[in-house]
């Protein structure tokens, strides 16, 4: 039965949420203008109605996903029956509508905090807030006014979206299963990365709304102290969200790293940089009252860039240039309007109030802390500018084409090299400035004292970098500079941290986060800048006979059971594996029989781990048939070895997805993924008949083989034999390169008819059948079929010191937390 009520209820909540947001915006506007407190009460009431309605939408959407209501298009296209509940959460925000909803959800949570704690800022801030909220809810409104589609509702019925003949025959038809969650998103990071990222998105609105309120209500500088802890919070959650996304990409995608300078990644990285710049100018303001204009510009720009990134990723304008953009829902006009309205309001207010904003007439002194911090904010902004410019190339193309000018600009061909060329210098600048800035922050140094203060950290970091350079043979100039400036930043911030720790630990947020950033920079330098493809195949082959150049191939071909030397390792592909729900480790499919349901298997024999049978014979186990793991054994020269299990997920709807397997160790990660695998359906050769004697060796597919013996058996494949049946099992040993394999074909006689049950070995590509037994000669006639041996093509990359990046992230987050606590305390003092 089609659950019409759920969609109707959800849609009703959406409409209530939209209307109440508009009412709240209007009433807060009136409340800010007028003296009557009635407006404020109305506004609050409207906001709480809005809050309740948003919670209602979220509940209904999760409810229909959780209960597999595939009559709803959103559920059908993003979820499926076999997803565990946590992936149903990911399904919730996989689509555009759900991710808007996630954003809206965080907004209302923040909204409640603002209503309760912002006092005399409530009305003006909540006006901006409710306005943004009305725009966001309109994105999921899904109503058509005068042929104009406003938003896309997540509560549309499948039959209304898809033109399938089945609905004409039976409108009540409900698809049996959904088309499922994109396999790439079936990862635990996709359960927590989007909420964290959207919390960061949502939090940027608080400083923005405060800045706009400041301009609007002529409280030109007051807003800054309220905005600082919120900006810190927004930067922390956005930063954490970005890194989680990077970590997810590292674990799941196969482009070989955690950051690809993809337009979608860039689009969220840029507002983060600007937000960090904004924190620094606001801190200058706290110290000496300057930098108000730059604080306005950066805080407002950060929010507008968040809206711009939403436009880039959701309007379809990026087209083919990004792997993670959403599919176009025809909302680009609405998104553009949203962007232009907020850009318009911001520019108008800034121009109207520009002359009221104080600016210092003081001459800049290089011995002044404000100078260095300001330079830092500038470097961050320039870095952001360098990233957003090429990222916007599709936008420039689109604007020019609309003006009738044909252009053919394309994004840089090699994104990573292109961006790195610039960003490495910004990284050096940022590292140096965090080091220098710390000294000046705590005391304005006199000319003469500067050298004294700096001497020790400079000497220590130069010594350390020289040592590292000598021992690691690092020769690239920008890399060396980044390394030494990173070490300098750690040493000088460390010095500050030690000094502060005993006296005013609460003030050490800056020093801690700067150490975190420097660790991250060094970690990125090593793990990306010095990452090394270790599956390099220096075959010296030509491109083709027509081409003069030699090429190195970055992948290697591994046949099962044929170890290959690679870098410092001996590599051996050991076969396909599966994983079972509720059991650790990897299993082979041969251990099971298929069942009627593709998601279930039945154990052929007792399956043991050590001596304990973990799955008794005949038990049914659940697994995901889309996933195959390719067991690869790495053996070092000293005999130490480890196993990696790169994965291939075959999803009929979404194509094949390859995910790496990573061997982590303190100093380096070995990252391995398959590029190509052999087709599972193989073609067997014509049967060759061969008479072989017991104990004599013969060759099959070039392997030395022996018939070890015959054995009479009482049951075949678990079925007891009938009266009068005779079954004989031959045991044939095949000597593989790494181990021996045994094949056991069966010859069965029933009612004078012979039945033959062949046995095959996937690894060797051999199938043997006992065609005839000649007892008088102690011999048998074997039927031999051969096929392509199972193989994989893989790529392996070494990533040194990647743990510095993750450690740095944690340190950075600790720094943010300390700073947020401190700045919140400041506010309440």
């Amino acid at each position: 039965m089609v659950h019409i009520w759920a969609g109707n209820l959800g849609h009703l909540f959406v409409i209530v949420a939209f209307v109440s947001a508009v009412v709240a915006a209007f009433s807060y506007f009136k409340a800010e203008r007028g003296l009557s407190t009635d407006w404020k009460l109305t506004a609050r009431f409207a906001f709480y109605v809005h809050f309740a309605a948003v919670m209602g939408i979220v509940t209904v959407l999760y409810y229909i996903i959780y209960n597999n209501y595939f009559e709803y298009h959103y559920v059908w296209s993003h979820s499926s029956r076999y997803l565990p509940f946590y992936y149903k959460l990911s399904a919730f925000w996989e689509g555009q509508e759900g991710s808007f909803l996630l954003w809206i959800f965080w907004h209302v949570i923040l909204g409640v905090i603002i209503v309760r704690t912002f006092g005399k800022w409530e009305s003006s801030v909540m006006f901006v807030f409710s306005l943004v909220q009305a725009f966001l809810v309109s994105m999921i409104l899904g109503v058509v006014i005068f042929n104009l589609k406003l938003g896309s509702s997540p509560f549309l019925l499948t039959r209304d979206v898809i033109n399938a003949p089945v609905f004409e025959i039976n409108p009540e038809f409900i698809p049996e299963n959904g088309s499922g969650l994109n396999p790439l998103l079936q990862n635990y990071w996709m359960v927590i990365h989007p909420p964290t990222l959207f919390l960061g998105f949502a939090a940027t609105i608080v400083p923005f709304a405060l800045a706009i309120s400041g301009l609007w209500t002529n409280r030109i500088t007051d807003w800054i102290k309220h905005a600082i802890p919120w900006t810190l919070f927004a930067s922390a959650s956005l930063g954490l969200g970005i890194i989680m996304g990077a970590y997810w990409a590292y674990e799941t995608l196969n482009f070989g790293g955690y950051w690809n300078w993809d337009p979608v990644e860039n689009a969220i990285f840029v507002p983060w940089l600007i937000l960090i710049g904004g924190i620094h100018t606001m801190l200058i303001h706290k110290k000496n009252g300057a930098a108000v204009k730059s604080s306005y510009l950066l805080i407002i720009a950060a929010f507008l860039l968040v809206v711009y990134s939403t436009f880039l990723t959701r309007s379809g304008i990026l087209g083919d240039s990004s792997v993670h953009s959403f599919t176009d829902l025809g909302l680009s006009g609405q998104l553009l309007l949203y962007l232009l309205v907020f850009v318009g309001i911001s520019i108008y207010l800034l121009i109207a109030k520009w002359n009221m904003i104080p600016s210092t007439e003081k001459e800049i002194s290089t011995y002044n802390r404000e100078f260095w911090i300001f330079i830092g904010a500038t470097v961050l902004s320039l870095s952001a500018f360098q990233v957003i410019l090429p990222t916007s190339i599709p936008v420039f193309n689109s604007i020019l084409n609309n003006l009738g000018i044909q252009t053919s600009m394309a994004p840089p061909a090699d994104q990573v090299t292109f961006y790195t060329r610039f960003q490495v210098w910004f990284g050096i600048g940022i590292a140096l400035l965090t080091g220098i800035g710390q000294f000046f922050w705590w005391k304005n140094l006199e000319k003469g004292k500067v050298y004294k203060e700096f001497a020790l950290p400079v000497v220590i970091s130069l010594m350390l970098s020289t040592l590292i350079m000598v021992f690691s043979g690092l020769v690239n100039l920008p890399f060396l500079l980044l390394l030494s400036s990173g070490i300098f930043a750690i040493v000088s911030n460390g010095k500050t941290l030690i000094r502060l720790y005993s006296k005013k630990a609460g003030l050490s947020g800056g020093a801690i986060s700067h150490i975190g950033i420097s660790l991250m920079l060094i970690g990125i330098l090593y793990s990306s800048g010095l990452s090394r493809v270790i599956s390099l195949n220096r075959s010296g082959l030509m491109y083709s006979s027509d081409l003069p150049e030699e090429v190195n191939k970055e992948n290697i071909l591994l046949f099962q059971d044929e170890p290959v030397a690679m870098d410092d390792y001996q590599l051996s592909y050991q076969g396909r594996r599966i994983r079972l729900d509720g059991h650790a480790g990897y299993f082979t499919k041969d251990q099971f029989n298929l069942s009627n349901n593709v998601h279930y298997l039945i154990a052929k024999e007792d399956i043991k781990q050590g001596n304990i049978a973990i799955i008794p014979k005949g038990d049914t186990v659940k697994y995901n048939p889309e996933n195959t793991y390719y067991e690869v054994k790495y053996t070092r020269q000293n005999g130490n070895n480890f196993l990696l299990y790169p994965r291939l997920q075959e999803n009929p709807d979404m194509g094949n997805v390859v995910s790496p397997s990573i061997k982590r160790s303190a100093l380096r990660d070995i990252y391995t993924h398959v590029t190509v695998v052999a087709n599972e359906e193989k073609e067997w050769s014509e049967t060759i008949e061969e008479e072989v004697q017991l104990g004599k060796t013969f060759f099959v597919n070039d392997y030395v083989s022996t018939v070890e013996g015959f054995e009479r058996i009482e049951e075949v494949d678990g079925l007891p034999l009938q009266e009068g049946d005779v079954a004989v099992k031959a045991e044939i040993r095949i000597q593989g390169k790494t181990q021996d394999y045994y094949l056991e074909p069966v010859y069965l006689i029933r009612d004078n008819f012979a039945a033959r049950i062949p046995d095959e070995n996937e690894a060797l590509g051999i199938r043997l059948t006992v065609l005839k037994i000649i007892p008088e000669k102690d011999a048998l006639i074997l039927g031999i079929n051969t096929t392509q041996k199972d193989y994989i093509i893989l790529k392996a990359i070494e990533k040194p010191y990647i743990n510095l990046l993750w450690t740095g992230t944690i340190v950075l987050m600790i720094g943010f937390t300390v700073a947020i606590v401190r700045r919140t305390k400041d506010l309440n003092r």
Partner: protein
Amino acid sequence: MKKTHIFGIIIIAIAVMIIIITAGDASTYVTFKEAMRMADEGNNKKIHVVGQLKKDSEGNIQGVEVTEDRLSVSFIMVDNENMEQKVYYNEPMPPDLQRSEQVVVIGSFKEDIFVADKILLKCPSKYQEEEIKI
């Protein structure tokens, strides 16, 4: 001149430099004909070419050749001006290559062969399957 002004001028100079370098480094979408002309002029900048795999009248894909070691592939691509061109890709054949309805190759000419560093594939059903299975 005040220091603030000097500071402003430096920032603007850096910004302008970034714009100029970005414009210079941006790749372009071209046809094979244009790409060949660029290569003849000694311009070996990486460019984007959009097209499809060559197909016979029955829609079978023609001209895909995987090298013996299976680690690289070459294929015939037809660009939007219907010009055929052999493309070499120094990576194993992407599994979706033969299913693709549109191919974007990024690279440059080496003699008569277009060597692709990167291939973007647009596949018909990927991520937007809109068919109900009964």
